[in-house]
């Protein structure tokens, strides 16, 4: 006698077609996993799964002294390592109420902006590559190399510098630093026109990005999307303007705000920001005052008991460092409000209803760096 098998009735319409984008996928820029539910090619919803390279930096910070923490912050958002260092250094300086020499402020601001350009260049590479234009990748890296060479000459390393220390800098800038930076600005002003010609003006790129992944201003604020992605939605969130640090007050620059809120706007904000950063550097580079490259610091840095918060504008958005100190040389709790972590939260919201190809473009325009999400 044959056994009767009752097959479940399958409703094709309601069944979800899941795709695991990642952890190994070319367009997630690292080990991020997006579980995407599809209907045909259209994204119904997606769930980000992160934590594949969670290293517990916040836990490690609780065991480290403040100068030792600096090298850990390098490894969060490795593309804006200097800016991350800057946040922690400023926090310690603010807690100890130390006046940092003017020279240090200038150098830090210039190096931050160089780092921002380098980071945006890499973003441009990967944006072009995610859209399918592989050549962009090499042009971006070619020009980024020039900045990395300047970094290497002055600070000894290309990516993870640990150049700032609480109270100042590890060492003074190289004697050729100013000349090299000026040469680079001259070089990059020429090359950025190529960027515009090959990608910004391209009709395929316009079609791919215009009106894709719309994020309204209200949502940007509510989701805490900061940095270029937030400013593309009209959210005035530039920490350099609203809570100035370093010597940004002395430089004349615009906060780029675009109202469109789509992928193309996020692209354009970054392109403009590279130019603004060059403007800032040009204004400051000749005016670096002479002086000491570090303030006098005690051998053991102990923060007075209390809570401190420092915000900086990292390349991808607002980086917040929150420290609870109990008066010891190690913090009781150190929390990094990483820009990418908040920016990732919005991905599900803005990619619903778009196609897989759009999802890749949106992901590229949000420009996440996975170690910064996972920390």
């Amino acid at each position, binding site marked *: 006698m044959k056994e009767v098998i009752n097959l479940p009735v399958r409703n094709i319409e309601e069944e979800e077609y899941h795709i695991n984008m990642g952890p190994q996928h070319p367009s997630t820029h690292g080990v991020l996993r997006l579980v995407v539910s599809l209907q045909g090619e259209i994204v119904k919803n997606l769930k980000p799964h992160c934590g594949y390279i969670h290293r517990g930096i916040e836990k490690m910070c609780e065991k*480290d002294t403040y100068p030792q923490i600096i*090298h*850990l912050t390098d490894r969060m958002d490795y593309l804006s390592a200097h800016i991350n260092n800057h946040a922690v250094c400023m926090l310690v300086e603010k807690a100890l109420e130390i006046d940092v020499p003017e020279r240090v402020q200038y150098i830090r601001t210039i190096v931050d902006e160089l780092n921002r350009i380098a980071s945006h260049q890499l973003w441009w590479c990967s944006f072009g590559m995610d859209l399918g234009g592989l050549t962009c990748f090499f042009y971006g890296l*070619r020009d980024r190399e020039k900045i990395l060479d300047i970094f*290497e*000459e002055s600070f*000894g390393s290309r990516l993870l510098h640990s150049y700032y220390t609480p109270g100042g800098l590890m060492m003074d800038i190289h004697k050729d630093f100013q000349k090299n930076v000026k040469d680079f600005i001259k070089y990059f002003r020429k090359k950025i026109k190529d960027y515009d010609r090959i*990608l910004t003006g391209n009709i395929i790129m316009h079609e791919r990005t215009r009106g894709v992944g719309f994020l309204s201003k209200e949502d940007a604020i509510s989701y805490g999307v900061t940095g270029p992605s937030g400013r593309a939605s009209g959210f005035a969130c530039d920490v350099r303007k609203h809570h100035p640090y370093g010597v940004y007050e002395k430089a004349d620059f615009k906060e780029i705000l675009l109202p469109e809120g789509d992928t193309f706007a996020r692209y354009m904000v970054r392109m403009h920001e590279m130019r603004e950063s060059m403007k800032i550097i040009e204004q400051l580079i000749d005016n670096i005052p002479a002086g000491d490259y570090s303030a006098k610091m005690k051998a053991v840095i102990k923060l007075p008991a209390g809570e401190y918060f420092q915000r900086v504008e990292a390349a991808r958005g607002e980086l917040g460092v929150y420290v609870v100190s109990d008066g010891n040389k190690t913090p009781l709790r150190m929390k990094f409000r990483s820009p990418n972590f908040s920016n990732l939260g919005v991905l599900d919201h803005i990619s619903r209803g778009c196609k897989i190809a759009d999802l890749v473009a949106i992901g590229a325009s949000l420009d996440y760096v996975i170690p910064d999400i996972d920390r």
Partner: protein
Amino acid sequence: MNSFFKYFTDIFHAVKSLLTGMTVTGKYFFSPWEIVTQQYPENRKTLKMYDRFKGEVIMPHNAQNEHRCTGCGICETNCPNGSIEVIQNKIDMPDGKKKRIIDQHIYHLSMCAFCGLCIKTCPSNALAWGQEFEHAVFDRSKLTKILNKPGSSILKDIAE
């Protein structure tokens, strides 16, 4: 009629934008002097790293095989990753006192994060950055290095 013209102007602008893009790649195709790639193993002889390049931590020795390390261990406490171990020795001084000197300064390159705190905090400037960058080895244990050379001694004026 308007949309009819728009149809053709769209095509015109599209083609124009595509051709602009092609001029960029075409220009680079025909300008091989702009190639930026370095032929790495071949150019080893001419390759020079910057003075400040952080290749590895070294302990400079002078011609008399003398270094500046007192073996105080400040680098060890400052290292965030525990990549430095300082092993001290006690020797009897002629005046009867015991004195600590360095026996071995062990440096685990595999754990080093190149933060530079050991070099910055060293009170006698005994450590420095080396420009060597070809660290690949087949055995992990080769990355553990002893920085003071065998038979070396501390520089006279540091010791006093």
